């Protein structure tokens, strides 16, 4: 198995299917790896999967969701490892479990979106940051439920992903306004709630998300606006950053930047860490959680 092959599969999924997040794409890649590359032992399979995860971490895509998704997947399927006798049997069980896992992931977004609908009331103004598929879906569902609300979307430099979000919202007939990142403080007093997605959820109950989220959270807390985070549970990861400096470096920069060996202090970080104190609630497929409940769920998953 070659590193490049894995990367190709992964990037192909991301390219062809607009609606698939990096985490889900990574898990699908892993499933393909199990299917396509025949091995004879569990150990070999393990090594293969690890190699695949490593390959995906180095394809110039945001790493946060990839690493948490892969970690959970490995945890979930490899639990079967010790229970069966022959390897073929084991492989079949792993594939089966992997597909079940993937199915639940795909359902997750719908669940989260449904949970968020009651929180979007008629006539409310929502501020969102960057582009999040799950936030988009929640807003589309709310719109379908004949809720009338107004959305402010930040541009979200440096990749201006907010523009795409704005376009998609307008296309769905939702009243959306594109604002500058620097206008967050100005807009904050008008909005009723802040609704954001997340790339990863940390053990503390904080989130790692597109740069600018931390500032948004601080402004929201100062003006006492609730901050709702919409996220699937496969983004829960077992890291515990103490502050921005403590966020793993591969999360903050693309692998190409890290490899180039440039002075990182001169580079823009892609993500920041928002501590749990700035988050009101997390909407997940496990239910609506307070930030402190995240570690409960993680302990349940991993211990």
């Amino acid at each position: 198995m070659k590193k490049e092959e894995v990367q190709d599969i992964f990037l192909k999924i991301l390219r062809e299917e607009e609606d698939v997040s990096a985490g889900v794409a990574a898990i699908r890649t892993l499933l393909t790896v199990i299917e396509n590359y025949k091995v004879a032992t569990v150990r070999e399979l393990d090594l293969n999967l690890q190699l695949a995860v490593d390959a995906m971490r180095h394809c110039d895509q945001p790493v946060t969701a990839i690493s948490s998704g892969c970690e959970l997947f490995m945890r979930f399927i490899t639990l079967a490892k010790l229970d069966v006798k022959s390897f073929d049997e084991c492989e079949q069980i792993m594939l089966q479990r992997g597909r079940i896992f993937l199915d639940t992931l795909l359902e997750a977004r719908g669940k989260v979106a449904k949970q968020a609908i009651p929180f979007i009331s008629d006539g409310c103004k929502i501020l969102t940051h960057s582009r999040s598929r799950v936030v988009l879906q929640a807003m589309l569902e709310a719109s379908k439920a004949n809720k009338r609300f107004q959305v402010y979307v930040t541009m979200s430099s440096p990749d201006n992903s907010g523009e795409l979000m704005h376009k998609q919202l307008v296309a769905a007939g939702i009243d959306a306004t594109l604002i500058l990142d620097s206008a967050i403080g100005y807009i904050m007093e008008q909005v009723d709630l802040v609704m954001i997605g997340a790339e990863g959820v940390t053990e503390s109950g904080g989130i790692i998300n597109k740069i600018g989220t931390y500032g948004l959270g601080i402004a929201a807390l100062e003006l006492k606006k609730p901050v709702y985070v919409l996220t699937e549970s496969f983004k829960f990861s077992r890291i515990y950053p103490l502050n921005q400096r403590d966020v793993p470096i591969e999360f903050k920069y693309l692998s190409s930047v890290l490899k180039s060996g440039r002075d990182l202090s001169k580079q823009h970080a892609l993500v920041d860490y928002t501590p749990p104190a700035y988050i009101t609630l997390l909407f997940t497929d496990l239910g609506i959680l307070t930030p402190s409940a995240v570690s409960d769920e993680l302990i349940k998953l991993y211990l």
Partner: protein
Amino acid sequence: MVITEANADNDPIANTSSKKRRLRRKRLNAARALHKDLNNPASLISTTVTNHLVPNQEINGIVRKPQKKSIDSNCSKLDSTLENIVNMSSKEDSKSRDDVLAAREAKKLAKQKGKPKPTQNEAQTAVTKSDTPKENSATEKIGKENKETKKLATSESAKSKDEVDKAVVKTDDISKDDIKAERAAKKAAKQAKKKKEDGGDACADNMTVKDVVETLKDIANVAREVQDVTAKVQAINLEPKKAEESGKSKAELRAERRAKQEAQRAAKQAAVQQKAPADKPEAKAKADETVKPKEEKSPKVKSAEKAKSKQQSVNRVNWFQHLHMQQDKESLKKIPINSNLHPAIIKLGVQLASRVVSGSNARCIALLDALKKMVRDYTLPAKTEFARGLEAHLAASLEFLWAMRQPSASQTNAVKCFRHHLTQLPNNVDEFDAKKTLQEEIDRYIREQIDMAGEAISLTVRNKISDGDIILTYGCSSLIERILVEAHASGLRFRAAVAGARVGAGASAREMLRRLVAKGVPATYVDITAVSYIMPTINKVLLSASALLVNGSVLGAVGTAQVALVAKSFNVPVLVACETHKFSERVQTDAFVYNEIGDPDELVDKTDENSPLKDWRSNPNLTPLNLTYDVTPPSLVTAVVTELAILPCTSAPVVLRFKLSEYGI
């Protein structure tokens, strides 16, 4: 008691009454002639007693055996119902006199302590060799007392004295039914003890020198109460004839003697087992101390005591009256010591009370170690289930330990785990296997919950330390020391800053500093008052905890909350390192509901001649307060590092739930 006996011939009081003793002997011979049919060779009982003693090397055992014998002698007392009632009544008359007597006794005891004393075994042989009525110490004592009483009052007491002596003669008589009698006596003694406790009297088992007097006062009452039980005793008694004749008086005498002997024994043990330095002179001083006030009339003593306690309460802050206070050296000597406790437990108790063993982990390990020794040396009484027998023993030991110092969360959890394994033992388990299992479990607990947990935490924290960091810590903790030393050894280039205080928990920070510097960790020392000055340069604060409460609060050494508060206000992340065996199910939001009050003298600057706190005891308006713990609210703590994971404080309930499902505790 035994020693008193051995030296009785040198005793001046005993010598003055030698005439009377001669008279008594005459009467004794007469009594012997009367009971010839029952008479056995006197040597028989002494041999049985020595045989009993040989295998048992324990001090407790040696002390206890002669007491049994005396109870036997009690059993043999047949024909003295009337005389005993007279005896009792004379006693009641001379209650206050008894006080004086007891005081003298105590004095005597103290004097003998001062003298070069024969070893326990020598004393024992002295007892077993002698055939005369004097051999039984309790009897002897009663005799003496009655002698004193006689001076002041009645001929009745003389009568009773004679009866007592007669009883001793009959000690020889019953050696036939020695074992049977012993059993019956044991039962009777138990009942008598129960009765006593019911009556609110001093517990015969836990007596200090001070209590001797109290007990003597109560003896008459006890005897009266015991009369009620006598019917039962008779039923149990395997010697129907004897029981018929003198059931009531037997019980009375038995209870009385037992109480006295217990008192003497306790007094002696209190002196012998006192771990405090300079054993003998101190014991003497103590005895004198307790005796002197007692020589006055008892009501006066009481008022003096009241005044003393009042004085103490004056010097305690009002809102902290409910808190447990550290025992100073004086009160440490007055702690009742149960003779059944294992020496390791007593040693640990004193170490805990005097803060020789301090720190959550150290206290836990010391406790487990003592429990291990206790399990190893535990002898299972006949017809007892191992778990039940040991459980009772454990409860007594823990009661003593917790009286010395309140248990920490780590200790509570360790005991909970130990109890859990104890109850898991199968009913018919072999004693040897059970002991082995328990000792292995204790070892496993220390290894897994403390040592390996510490290693895991050390590894986790190391990942959070980066080159060039300055890590602030407060006080002294074995875990923090381990983390920093290991992180340094792994090649991380960081500095440690140790915050401490002049007194209390902060004072141990200098020890921490010494240990860190000795291991080559670059370290700075700051006083807690300077923490806000140094905080802008600090990258992380690493604190230890005594317990993590279920609401996420951190119970730590006093000063911890202050450091965390300053760190929070400077936006410095605060890490608390805490193994999961320190997680507690208690909820506490402030340090007022539960705390410990340390030695107030620690607050006084001893180097300063003109310290305004120097004579705080004489100033009723001055109340120094030295608290041991404080509570850090969860909002001030960024994360808790446990062996399971780095967690937010608020996840404490999850960890407890997890442990419950994993270990069943």
